[in-house]
């Protein structure tokens, strides 16, 4: 297929996934912030950590003075100054979709186009904090619809695989960042100190990747911080874990190399990172240092995106 089309599909999926991730981050902040202070912990500012998780704190501070709920919502959901705001993600996704309409199925196009139309309506009026959940639901549903249409209607060929690659690179990046922002509450030595307060932090992490209930099904026990990390890093059955993302990335890169009859740096890198995630235990990672591990992972993940681009997309 055309390199430019593959590139647009790759980024289209990344942007839809990013919009959904930002919606989840805002959702967690909203829930945590609406908890009574005695549960929530006095020290934490959930709206600020939403900005950090979204990688948007610096950009935010350039525009706003105060980290208020209204400001954070505006910046993460609507602001034009924030290239990764939900609004900008959906705008960019639609631009990409328009330029590759012939590579999309009509269901995928309609999912993007109606999300874009719906969001424009929201943008027109200021959203109140209490209306946030409804808005976030809309974004999550748009992403589900896009993803579902892709799964159900696309031919299983390179167009499909490139769109999946974008999605998993973005998802892996997001999961690693969610963990990294909260890594201090996951360290074993903090477990004793934390008590009730940290419990909510762990739950929030899980919730931000839709894994709170899954946790119970996998471990059958109360929340333990190292198990939260285990679930999100190493468990292949957890769809947003780093291991699952890399399983999918290596699989789809192999699909492409089989179809094209040749492999390259992208295949090698994905396989190496996947191997590092499957041959390790969570104890091992903690000994190495969770924060260091996640930083390395984020850099590797970024490098894989670049390798895919230079091998196929330009």
């Amino acid at each position, binding site marked *: 297929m055309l*390199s430019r089309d593959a590139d647009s599909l790759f980024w289209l999926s990344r942007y839809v996934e990013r919009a959904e991730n930002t919606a989840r981050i805002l959702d967690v902040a909203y829930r945590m912030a609406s908890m009574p202070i005695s549960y929530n912990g006095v020290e934490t500012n959930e709206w600020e950590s939403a900005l950090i998780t979204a990688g948007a704190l610096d950009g935010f501070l350039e525009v706003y003075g105060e980290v208020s709920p209204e400001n954070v919502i505006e910046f993460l959901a609507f602001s034009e100054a924030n290239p990764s705001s939900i609004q900008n993600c959906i705008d960019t996704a639609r631009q990409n979709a328009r330029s590759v*309409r012939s590579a999309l199925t009509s269901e995928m196009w*309609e999912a993007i186009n109606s999300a874009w139309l719906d969001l424009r309506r929201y943008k027109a009026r200021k959203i109140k904090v209490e209306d946030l959940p409804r808005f976030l639901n809309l974004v999550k549903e748009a992403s589900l619809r896009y993803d579902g249409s892709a799964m159900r209607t696309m031919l299983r060929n390179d167009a499909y695989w490139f769109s999946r690659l974008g999605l998993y690179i973005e998802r892996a990046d997001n999961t690693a960042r969610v963990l990294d922002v909260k890594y201090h509450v996951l360290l074993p030595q903090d477990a004793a100190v934390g008590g009730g307060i940290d419990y909510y932090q762990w739950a929030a992490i899980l919730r931000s990747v839709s894994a709170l209930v899954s946790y119970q099904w996998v471990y059958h026990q109360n929340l333990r911080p190292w198990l939260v990390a285990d679930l999100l890093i190493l468990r292949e059955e957890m769809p947003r874990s780093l291991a699952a993302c890399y399983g999918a990335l290596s699989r789809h890169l192999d699909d492409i190399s089989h179809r*094209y009859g040749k492999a390259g740096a992208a295949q090698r890198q994905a396989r190496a990172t996947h191997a590092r995630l499957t041959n390790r235990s969570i104890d091992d990672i903690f000994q190495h240092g969770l924060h260091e591990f996640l930083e390395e992972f984020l850099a590797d993940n970024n490098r894989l995106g670049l390798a895919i681009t230079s091998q196929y997309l330009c």
Partner: protein
Amino acid sequence: MAARAIFDEMNGHDGQSRDAYRVLQDWLKSAPPQLLEHRREEAELFFRRVGITFAVYGNTEAEERLIPFDIIPRILSGQEWARLSRGLEQRVKALNMFLKDIYGPREILRAGIVPPELVYLNPYYRPQMHGLSLNSDIYVQVAGIDIVRVDDQDFYVLEDNLRTPSGVSYMLENREVMMRLFPELVGMQRIRPIENYVDELLGTLKSVAPSSSPWDPTVVLLTPGALNSAYYEHSFLADRMGVELVEGRDLFVRDEMVYMRTTEGPKRVDVIYSRIDDDFLDPLVFRPDSALGVPGLIAAYRAGNVAIANAPGTGVADDKAMYSYVPDFVRFYMGEEPILKNVPTWRCRERESLSYVVDNLHELVVKEVNGSGGYGMLVGPHATKEACEQFKSRVLAAPDNYIAQPTLALSTSPVFTEKGLAPRHVDLRPFVLTGRDGVRLVPGGLTRVALTEGSLVVNSSQGGGTKDTWVLSE
């Protein structure tokens, strides 16, 4: 023409329902009034959701607009279509022969039928095409011929569009919407299908591939990009044909061969269905400041390694001054009488015509020779005195740039409005495909309608809308 009541496609001159419309009219009488309003809303929703939009240049406010769709179909009987399609085929054949002649032996100039300066001074004349033998002898693979009528007898050609005619996606989508919204009505009579247009287009394009290309040639559709007003159509056609939608930057030329950049490396391209102006095809040959084109493309084309449809330089045959000679092309090249009529045309470049035009501006439609899309024209009877005066001085300053025609009492067709059915002026753009293996036509075309009461301008950029067009089986 003006003395009689305006001819209506459904009701004729006298309000007597015409045969082809009888089923529709009975159905309209029996349909509850809310039903039509409901379906109209559904249709709009459909177009919006699917994103069938077009961009209006110079109008940032409404970057993407819907072309208004009217739910009342326009109907042609089998006999009407038979006559019209014969005329179209004849006309397009003559136009292709003219282009072959102009870029070859130029017999028509030597015979004194067309003044040479109309060719050589035409901005769309491409000297680069001269002496080039196309392996198929076809210059215009896709033509959109604008047809109007003033009674139930004759079809008049208003304009030949031989460069990058658009609108066929609306023709196809309109039918799809009608079948979705009015299955019961569509099922009540035998409407000839048009859905095969895309297959016919692909067949036509493949038929003109260079002789060196493989058995199944690679076809691409070349678009200026997502900001172009017809981008929706480009992506629609590429998608339905199953060919890549490319921009200039996706193509490159090496050793006079054209390739596209793909995820598997360079891939050879055999046929380019070009939807960009000649000017932007190749910066080495045409406009050097263009970022849209493909450097070296024309060299590859001249070497016979790639086909471009339509060929560069077809615009010399479709400007409004050349238009008035097309009936002569038919007589000169084919020895036949033209089946389709031309609208009488005054060429302002001719002295007597000019003085007639200037004196009768208020009764005429005056058009810029190279204008399109309803821009640069004056509809005399609807224009203010000042506008007429202004236009007059423009015409006098550069008479060669203008032609004038009588204001035709264009036929009307009923449209659905808030106040019920009301007549509005319509035209028809059938699409004529010409391949090495002959002419292909799907029955019908795009009916455009001037939605403003009394308006004669049907262009989508000027607030026109569209309708589905039905050709009934004989």
